């Protein structure tokens, strides 16, 4: 697996863990263990996201973070991926 795919996979896994904790916390809003795990995964996700965006470009338009160029439209487009 190349680096790009590995980073995407990481983000996918963190997103899933966060969603699971989200659902648990909906019914257990004061569970400190779930809250602390949510925080950990949130940080891991942020780290993986910024690494991905800096290396491979934005995942969503709001990740475009260049003051002189709108990187969202840069190649490759989703259907051009190898």
């Amino acid at each position, binding site marked *: 697996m190349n680096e790009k795919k590995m980073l995407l996979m990481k983000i996918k896994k963190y997103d*899933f*863990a966060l969603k699971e904790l989200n659902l648990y916390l909906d*019914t257990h809003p004061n*569970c*400190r263990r779930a809250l602390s795990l949510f925080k950990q995964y949130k940080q891991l996700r942020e780290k993986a996201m910024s690494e991905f965006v800096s290396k491979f470009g934005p995942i969503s338009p709001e990740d475009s973070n260049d003051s002189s160029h709108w990187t969202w439209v840069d190649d490759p487009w989703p259907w051009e991926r190898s």
Partner: protein
Amino acid sequence: MNLDLFDNIDGLLIRERENYLEDDDLKSRPDNNYDPSSFPERTPLAMAYIPYQQWGNVYDDDKALAQGTLFPDLDLPFKGGSRL
């Protein structure tokens, strides 16, 4: 969330206890002997029940995505009606 309404159903719906415990207490699970699959003695017929989830172990993110749940307690693959 107020669950008081359900508290008189013979303890079937276990209140989340973690909220009232100190950090140290949280390390040992309060419900080691609690079997979520068994019904209390006088369980009315024809009612549907969902035991309230208690905090337990969690999978790591790799395993969680593969199993489709972060919680081993909820990792219950369907095997044609026979229990695990």
